[in-house]
């Protein structure tokens, strides 16, 4: 188990290094001058040059790449004394950071990965992500929980009521849910529940996790705003979970051990829930975690329609403005999250099915 975890983490680091390398070279090969972007069209040449020097854009690409890696790596090498050095250990950039040891002028530190600053807002990219990601995480978790719980329940119902009108209705609903585009669903749902029925539901067309009170100006957490985007995002995974649970459970219910369970004298409910469902969950979990992972990368359309300021919106904004550090930082962050989710999923499998052996 521990062996496996270590192996997976090592592979994960390899994957992230690969992603880092690809995005670095991708954005360095692309045309576009970051210093110009930063200063605007009318900046004078000397300040552009100064910025270039400051960002290290005058250095060879390979040096820039190594520096980029050095900034990202939790363990990095810096120059401790020369303030003009490109490798200078700048406490303002790197914090929190701890010196591990130093040899002469060179110091090896353990630090939080430094994702640099946005060209546009000059804010640290890590703080931009720290602000946006929890919202995405909350939205993704809410919609996945909704899809999982409702989906499994409806799937079980459909399996038990196989070939009845209820089952057929659920199947039609499920194929409808699978095929409806999310931006369209978002608009329809926003219009229906927050405009036509707004008096009954009391929901707003859009709004993020934090709202500002109109009278007092106080900022408060508004969980109501979560409902519509979560439902919208949940529709497709819900539809998939319903049909997967149904078919997987039907398959399991024809197995020999279900007959054994019935022969013990167990009630239908215990047979289906106690013996059937757990065996049927594997494909469902695969689908759910896959969706969860992709939702973590931000559901751009839905976040946009509902103005939910998650990581999807951050990335699209940054792309529009060619805000390289933000794009690179977010993509990297998402790939780390995906690697972690995947490792987690493997462990969930072992909990659900003892036959799955990690190694």
């Amino acid at each position, binding site marked *: 188990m521990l*062996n496996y975890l*270590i*192996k997976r983490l090592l592979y994960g680091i390899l994957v992230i290094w690969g992603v880092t390398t690809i995005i670095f070279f991708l954005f360095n090969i692309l045309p576009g001058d970051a210093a110009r972007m930063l200063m605007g069209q009318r900046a004078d040449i000397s300040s552009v040059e100064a910025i270039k020097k400051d960002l290290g854009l005058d250095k060879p690409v390979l040096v820039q790449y190594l520096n980029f890696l050095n900034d990202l790596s939790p363990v990095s090498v810096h120059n401790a004394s020369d303030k003009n050095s490109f490798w200078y250990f700048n406490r303002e950039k790197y914090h929190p950071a701890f010196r591990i040891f130093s040899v002469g002028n060179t110091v090896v530190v353990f630090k939080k990965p430094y994702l640099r600053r946005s060209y546009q807002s000059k804010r640290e990219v890590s703080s931009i992500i720290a602000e946006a990601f929890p919202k995405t995480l909350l939205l993704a978790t809410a919609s996945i929980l909704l899809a999982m719980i409702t989906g499994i329940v409806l799937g079980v119902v459909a399996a038990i009521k196989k070939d009845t009108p209820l089952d057929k209705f659920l199947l039609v609903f499920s194929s409808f849910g699978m095929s409806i585009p999310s931006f369209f669903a978002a608009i329809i749902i926003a219009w229906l529940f927050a405009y036509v029925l707004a008096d009954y539901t009391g929901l707003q067309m859009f709004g993020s996790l934090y709202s500002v009170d109109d009278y007092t100006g106080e900022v408060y957490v508004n969980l109501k705003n979560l409902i519509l985007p979560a439902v919208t995002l949940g529709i497709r995974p819900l539809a998939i979970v319903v049909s997967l649970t149904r078919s997987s459970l039907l398959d399991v219910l024809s*197995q*020999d*051990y279900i*007959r*054994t*369970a*019935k*022969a*013990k*004298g*167990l*009630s239908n409910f215990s047979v289906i829930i*106690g*013996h059937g469902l*757990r*065996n049927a969950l594997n494909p469902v979990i695969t689908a759910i975690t896959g969706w969860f992972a992709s939702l973590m990368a931000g559901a751009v359309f839905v976040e946009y329609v509902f103005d939910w300021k998650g990581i999807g919106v951050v990335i699209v904004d940054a792309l529009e403005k060619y805000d390289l550090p933000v794009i690179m930082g977010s993509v990297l962050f998402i790939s780390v999250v995906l690697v972690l989710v995947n490792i987690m999923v493997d462990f969930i499998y072992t909990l*659900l*099915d*003892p*036959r799955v052996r990690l*190694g």
Partner: protein
Amino acid sequence: MLQIEDLQIVFKSEDTVIKAVDHISLNLGKGGSLGLVGESGSGKSVTALSVMNLLPAAAKITSGKIFFQGRELLKSGNKVMRSLRGGNISMIFQEPMTSLNPVMRCGEQVAESIRLHQKTDHKRAAKQVMALFEKVRLPRPESIYRAYPHQISGGQKQRVMIAMAIANNPDLLIADEPTTALDVTVQKEIIQLLKDLKEEYGMSLLFISHDLAVVSEVAEQVVVMHKGCIVESGDIHRVYRHPHHPYTQGLLSCRPPLTGRLKKLPVINEFMNSELKNDGYQTPETEKERKEKLKVIYANPPLLTVQDIKKEFPLKKSLFGKTKKSIKALDGISLKVFPGETLGVVGESGSGKTTLGMAILRLVEPDEGRIFFDEKELLQLSPAKMKQERQQLGIVFQDPYSSLNPRMSIGRAIMEPMKVYHLYRNNRERTQKTIELLEKTGLKAEHFNRYPHEFSGGQRQRIVIARALAPQPRFIICDEAVSALDVSVQALVLNLLNQLKQEFGFTYIFISHDLSIVRFMSDRIVVMKDGKIVETGDADEIYFNPKTEYTKQLIESIPKRIE
């Protein structure tokens, strides 16, 4: 105790109605044991399931009554049936491999039943399970309690099933083919266990099997079923010694005889249609004929030589992929097979006999050793050369249900190897050859476009054999080719294999756990245990004068007939 009166069960599908059980009546007294014998599809399992009220949805009971301790079961509600099931009536199923819930610990599956019927708490139920596990002679009850089904052997799983069945002191135990999926040695132990438990608990036992020899070891009374009807019933000794019905006579004689060597096994249809002619059954091959045949065979150089091959399967690997723990599936096997010979390989599951077959075909790559086929060293050949060589080597697998692609018509399945080896000029010729093969293996030309699910187990095994013959091999490995089949179907397939051998002059390696079948088929026998050869020699010599304890034990386990 149990009384079935005039029971009729039909299976309804969209346009057909099949009578699975056709007006049968039977009676099982308190503490008695009744054997129910028949081929697959004879309605014996359906009868048992109707007692449990566990019939599949497609089956409908159209007439009849089932009484259990004076109570009409077919009129009883769900609640009553639930309390009877697992309590007063319990059942052991055929497939121990799939009959236990794979994600639940073994002990918990038994404890669940105890808690349900005896309304005890977790702790007491667990204690009872432990005692039961000891009673069914499971080694290390504590660790098996905590084990998941995939972690224990088939025989152990069946013991867990038996523990589950006797957990609530049932009055009636139904055992549906409880030993069919197991090795002969394990079969013997399980049957003994059932007999002992029956005595101890005073249960009535309904024992269902396709094999009359097995039934004769447990049952006092026997009922023989054929196509949903009872064809014969009565005292087991009487039925065994003087079977009245031709079907029973056929069933009794289609097992390979324990003495003498027949050229061909009798099959049931010949008894049923009274076509039984005296064309070789009654006159076994004489010693002299056999010697002469063997002399011709052993005059040639061997076709296949296996030298000291080894294969280990890793069980546990360290962080850097180094093997920490492994199992030796083949531990230095050497053997020779002569052209035209049939070499039998016998051993229990886990003895490495299947791995041996796979290693010869290089379906698993041996770690060490050399294999010569027709003077060529197989393990040194490049993949392309090996592919060429494979044309000469056919294999027939154990399970005819899973070794055919369900989405491929059987004609295409048989034609596929011909295409792979670019045999014949075009598809029309290949189709022609496929139809010839179908007919040679006892199938019909019109089966060409049908799919595997439309065939019975015996027919499927014929299809698999036809497919193995398609690339015109010289050498065929039969890996437990008849183990999954009923005895009656077994005889047909064995006859087919022998007939094909005579016609095409094949060389066989015949792998099985059942020594009586291996002996019938083979000229020489190799006995395997734990990846090693424990004994090898002439088939009759090994059978009648076994040298090692292990071989004696294998012979001892063959279901004996009543003397």
